[in-house]
C-alpha cells in the first residue's frame, strides 16, 4: 500500500504558535459559523448538514481504515447504535443534557466497536471486511425486531424528543446546523490530536507493517481494539447527528448496507489517511445524486420513459464516476486540493 505513506512524520510536530496554520484555522472557524447567514434553509438542511455529518462519519472510518489499516464494511451499524442510544438516553434519562448524551452514545457505540473488532486480532484484509458485515446485519435486525429500542412505536421509528442545550432550542435548520458544526469541529480537533499523538503514530506503524510494530514494542492487539473503539465513537456520534440533526425521524433501515458503502466511498474518494479529505468525499456523495436530479430536469429525458428508468440511469452515472475517480485520482480528492495549493505556491514564488 504505497499510497498510504504520505502521512509519515516529515514535518516537525510543533509549529510556531502564530503561523499561517493558525490564521487558516481561525478563518475556517469564522467561515463555518457564518454559514447560516449566507445559506438559506434548503441549502442548510439538504446539502450542508448531511455533507458535514457524512464527512464526520468518514473521519470515523478513516481513523480505522486509513490510519490503522483495518477494513470495515459495517460502519453504518455503529452509526445506528449511536442514534438509538441517543434516542433512548434522551427518553429514559431526561435529566441528562444533550452534549453528555451524545458523548455517552458515542461511548456505547465504541464499546460495540471493540467487541466487533475482536476478529481483527486474528484476521485482516477482506476476511475482516466481510466479517464486519456481521455487525451491519446484526444491528439492523436487532433494532427492527426488538421494539424496546424504539420505545415500542408501531412504525419502529425514532425521533428526538428534544434538541436543546441550556434552554436554547436547536430544532430550526440554523440550530441543527450549529449543533452539527460545533460537534464536528470538536471531533476534528480530537481526530487531529489522536493522529498526531503516540497512539496515531503507533496505528500507522501497525498499518505499514504489523510485525515490525510488535517487534518495537507496540501492543498491536490493544491498539487495534482502541482503533475500533475510537472509530466507532466518531461513527456513533455521526449516527446520532444523522438521525436527529438531519433526518429528524429515522429507523434502523436508514443505516443499511448502502450507508456503509457510502462511507467507504467517502474514505476512498476523499483520500485514505486524511482528515479534511473526508468532507470532499462526503460532498461528492451528497451532491452527485442532487446534481443528477437537477440535470434530469434541465435535459429532456422523456425518451427513457418512467421514473424508474431515470433512477437506473443515475445508478449507472454514479457508478461510472466512482470508477473514473478511482482510476484518475489514486490518492483521492484531497490530493487534488494539495496539488492546487502547491501550484499556487510555486507560482507566487516564481513571480515574487
Amino acid at each position: 500500500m504505497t499510497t498510504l505513506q504520505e502521512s509519515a512524520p516529515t514535518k516537525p510536530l510543533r509549529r510556531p504558535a502564530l503561523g499561517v496554520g493558525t490564521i487558516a484555522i481561525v478563518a475556517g472557524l469564522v467561515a463555518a459559523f457564518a454559514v447560516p447567514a449566507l445559506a438559506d434553509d434548503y441549502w442548510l438542511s439538504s446539502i450542508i448538514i448531511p455533507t458535514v455529518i457524512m464527512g464526520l462519519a468518514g473521519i470515523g472510518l478513516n481513523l480505522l481504515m486509513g490510519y490503522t489499516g483495518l477494513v470495515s464494511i459495517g460502519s453504518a451499524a455503529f452509526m445506528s447504535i449511536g442514534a438509538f442510544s441517543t434516542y433512548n438516553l434522551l427518553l429514559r434519562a431526561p435529566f441528562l443534557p444533550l452534549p453528555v448524551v451524545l458523548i455517552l452514545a458515542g461511548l456505547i457505540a465504541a464499546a460495540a466497536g471493540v467487541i466487533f473488532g475482536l476478529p481483527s486480532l486474528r484476521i485482516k484484509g477482506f476476511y475482516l471486511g466481510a466479517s464486519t458485515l456481521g455487525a451491519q446485519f446484526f444491528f439492523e435486525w436487532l433494532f427492527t425486531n426488538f421494539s424496546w429500542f424504539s420505545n415500542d412505536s408501531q412504525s419502529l421509528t425514532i425521533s428526538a424528543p428534544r434538541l436543546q442545550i441550556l434552554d436554547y432550542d436547536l430544532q430550526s435548520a440554523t440550530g441543527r446546523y450549529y449543533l452539527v458544526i460545533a460537534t464536528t469541529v470538536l471531533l476534528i480537533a480530537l481526530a487531529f490530536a489522536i493522529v498526531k499523538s503516540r497512539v496515531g503514530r503507533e496505528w500507522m506503524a501497525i498499518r505499514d507493517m504489523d510485525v515490525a510494530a510488535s517487534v518495537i514494542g507496540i501492543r498491536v492487539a490493544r491498539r487495534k481494539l482502541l482503533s475500533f473503539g475510537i472509530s466507532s465513537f466518531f461513527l456513533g456520534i455521526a449516527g446520532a447527528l444523522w438521525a436527529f440533526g438531519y433526518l429528524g425521524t429515522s429507523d434502523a433501515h436508514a443505516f443499511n448496507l448502502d450507508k456503509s458503502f457510502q462511507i467507504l466511498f467517502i474514505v476512498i474518494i476523499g483520500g485514505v489517511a486524511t482528515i479534511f479529505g473526508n468532507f470532499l468525499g462526503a460532498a461528492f456523495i451528497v451532491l452527485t445524486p442532487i446534481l443528477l436530479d437537477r440535470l434530469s430536469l434541465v435535459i429532456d429525458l422523456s425518451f427513457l420513459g418512467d421514473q424508474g428508468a431515470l433512477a437506473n440511469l443515475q445508478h449507472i452515472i454514479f457508478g461510472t464516476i466512482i470508477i473514473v475517480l478511482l482510476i484518475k485520482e489514486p490518492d483521492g480528492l484531497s490530493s487534488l486540493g494539495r496539488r492546487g495549493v502547491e501550484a499556487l505556491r510555486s507560482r507566487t514564488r516564481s513571480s515574487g
Partner: protein
Amino acid sequence: MSYFLETLVSGLFAGVMYSLVAIGFVLIYKASGVFNFAQGAMLLFAALTFVTLIEKGMPFALAFIVTSLVMVAMAILIEWLVLRPLRNRDPLTLFMATSGLSYVIEGFAQLLMGMDVHMLDLGIPDVAVQVGGIYVSQFDIIASLIALTLVATLAITFNKTRMGISLRAVASDTLAAQSIGIRLPVIWRIVWSVAGIVALVAGLVWGSRQGVQYSLSLVTLKALPVLIIGGFSSIPGAIAGGLLVGATEALADIYIGPLVNGSVSTWFAYILAVGFLQIRPAGLFGDREIERV
C-alpha cells in the same frame, strides 16, 4: 427427528445454492486477487438477459448460448475499461471499483430489461419426493446435480487443460507466470468470462426459485459468509462452506429463531463465520500464509 432431518437436508440444498454463487467469487479472487462485489449484479444481469430472450420466443439452448456470449463480452469490456487502468493498485481500490461496477451493471440490467419480476420455468417440477423416509424437493436435487456438474467441469478444466494450468500459475505467482509468457489480460478476460457463465447458471437456478428480479443481486450477501468459512481462494472450500452455512442457518432459524422474535437468517451466517475465523483464520481450505495476523 424426521423434522430435524428434513430441515437439515433442505438446509444443505440451500447451501449448495450458496456455493454456486460463491464459486464465481472464488474464480476471480484466485486469478486476479480482486474481491468482485459485482458478482451479484452479474448474476442479475445474466438471469435478466436470459429471461428476456426466452420471453422473446428464443429456444432454451440458444438463449443460454447467446447469454453466455453476452457475459463474455461483458468480461472483455470490464477487463478493458476497469481492470486494465487499475492494475497494480491495492486490493481495496479494486474492490471499491467493483462495487461501483455493480451500480453500473445493475443500472444497465434494469434500464434495458425493465424492473418487473419475471417468472422463469426451467421445466423442473418442484414436487416433494420421498427419499429414505424424508421428503426432499425434486427441484433441490436437480439444482444440486447442476451445481455438481458445474464444479466437476471447472475442476477438470483447471487441472487438465493448458488454460487451467496457466490460470493456476497466475494465481500462485503472478510475476513468474508473466515472465514465462502467460499474458495476464487474456487470463483475466477468460476468468471473468467463466465467472459470468457461472453467474448465469446460478442466476437461472436462483431465479427459477424466487423469480428474476432485483433482489437476485442480494444473493451475493449470502455468499460472503460461505467465502469466509471456506476461504476466498478454494473451490472445495466454497462447497464445504456453503453446506455448513446452509445447514446451520436452516437449523438456527427453526430452533433459535422462535426464541429471539423471528428469523435470524440475515446475520446468523456472519456470526457463525466470525466465530469460525477465531478458530481457523484462513478458513477451511484457504491459503494459510496470506492475510493472517
